[in-house]
């Protein structure tokens, strides 16, 4: 009786593990393998030619540019927002937190739409922008804005829980000594959030690199000008250049794998550092 129950439990366990393994293999690993296989289908030189194509390089550069902008703006924002939300009491904190998380709940296409409405022809800003000769939608600034928007909460969301757990005692102690804001931030607060910040940066990079819907709305699809890598993939795919599409995709796959590995490492380091420095 006892023994049969134990065996049936073990069988159940193997069944569940197997089920998960099959599910993840089919859903996640198979597409990755397929992308790499298709990218190399016509040989390595065709692959190299596809990814060193002039337009492909333009797309890589634009993606890089958008990612860097998103990282810069969102890091600055994330640090400031996390610092003010966790270290001070003020009215409207909840509203601000909700607004920060809002971009996560908005469909990328709708995010794109919102920016079109803000800067497009029917907007009250349009005339002013036109006069200053600033083009936002269907141009690079639009692509960058869309990227910032969809990745907006990624860094602050990582920092806020860590700083909340840390409390305000250490900052108060430093303030009592007469330390200024930058000294407190640099010497007291920053060591706590170091890993969380890097983690947020990695997530933000991954998302910024891959954004499709919002960027698609705002880019205007000008080859060599406003095409990011995912948009370029779409362009190639719709032009039936599957080798090219999958070759450029393979670059994004490599980036995704790098992100996953970094993520695991950083998560582990962050947890360890938080545990190590946590006491009663």
């Amino acid at each position, binding site marked *: 009786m006892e023994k049969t129950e134990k065996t049936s439990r073990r069988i159940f*366990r193997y069944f*569940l*593990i197997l089920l*998960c393994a099959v*599910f*993840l293999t089919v*859903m*996640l690993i*198979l*597409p*990755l393998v*397929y*992308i790499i296989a*298709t990218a190399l289908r016509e040989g390595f030189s065709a692959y190299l030619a596809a990814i060193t194509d002039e337009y492909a390089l333009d797309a890589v550069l634009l993606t890089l540019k958008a990612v860097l902008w998103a990282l810069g*703006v969102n890091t*600055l924002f994330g640090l400031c*927002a996390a610092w*003010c939300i966790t270290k*001070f*009491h*003020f009215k409207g904190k909840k509203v601000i937190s909700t*607004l*920060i998380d*809002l971009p996560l*709940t*908005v*469909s*990328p*296409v*709708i995010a794109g*739409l*919102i920016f*079109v*409405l*803000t800067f497009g022809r029917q907007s*009250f800003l349009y005339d002013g922008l036109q006069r200053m000769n600033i083009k936002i939608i269907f141009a690079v600034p639009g692509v960058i*804005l869309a990227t*910032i*928007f969809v990745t907006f909460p990624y860094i602050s969301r990582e920092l806020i829980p860590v700083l909340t757990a840390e409390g305000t005692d250490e*900052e*108060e102690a430093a*303030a009592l000594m007469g330390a*200024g*804001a930058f000294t*407190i931030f640099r010497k007291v607060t920053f060591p706590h959030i170091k890993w969380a910040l890097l983690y947020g940066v990695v997530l933000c990079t*991954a998302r910024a690199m*891959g954004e*499709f*819907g919002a960027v698609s*709305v705002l880019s205007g699809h000008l080859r060599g000008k406003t095409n990011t890598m*995912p948009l370029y*993939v*779409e362009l190639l*795919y719709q032009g039936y250049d599957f080798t090219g599409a*999958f070759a450029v*995709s393979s670059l994004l*796959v490599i980036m995704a794998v790098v*992100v*996953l590995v970094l993520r*695991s490492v950083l998560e582990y380091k962050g947890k360890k550092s938080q545990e190590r420095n946590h006491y009663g």
Partner: protein
Amino acid sequence: MMKRKSTKKTRVIPGFGLSFGITMTILGLIVIIPLCSLVVFSVQLSPAELIRTITRPRVLASYGVSFVTAFAAAAVNAGMGLILAWVLVRYRFPGKRIMDGLIELPFALPTAVAGIALTHLTTENGWVGSLFAKLGIRIAYTKTGIIIALIFIGIPFVVRSVQPVLEKMDPQYEEAAQILGFGPVRTYWKVIFPEIFPAWLSGFTLAFARCLGEYGSVVFIAGNTPFKTEIAPLVIMAQLQEYDYASATSIALVMLLASFLILLINAFIQSRASKKVSGIV
């Protein structure tokens, strides 16, 4: 006036002004101004026109496709996510760390890349599609295809919601249940599941909301046949490409309302659940 002064002085930690200023400026530029322009544009729409737009048969059909496929995908993920979280927390086996890391792939892999790969795999001469084609099942360019793409997108949500709760759960509950003579199934349903229910539900709603808005991975696999495999975000996109901002906004407002409602229902159930646990009614 007095009060404002006194609250200001209680800020012992310096740097509020600067950090708050930067926060509000960036938040204003990236979120608040665009949101306001959406609101401004929306109130200018004539209600009659709005209703006419969103009740167009093609639009209604697209809502239907979006909801059905998003719900189906979220439901599959709710089930698989629960099992995955369970396996990752409770069992030890070789390759567990890799499996755990892999869960996040849909966050890391650009949706468009996932979209084209899944499409190619499931067409009638794709690696997987050809197997199903023999059984007379078509995946790519059908609702099934959309659901597959959305399952891919939604995998991490339920797992990552349930996993930490399951990790933190005190094994004493289960031990107590076993001592009371509960069998494994009963222990699971009566003891463990109620504990992880709020997290599970919030994972489900997040996945559902995400799937409703998903565009990149679906657009390739859907085939985009009006009335059959056209999702709402695609209709919005089509309106945008025709510069019909009024229609696009009308359709988008319904989608925004829907995801807002989903999150609200979730918040309501969460607060009910936490009240049940803390004993405050």
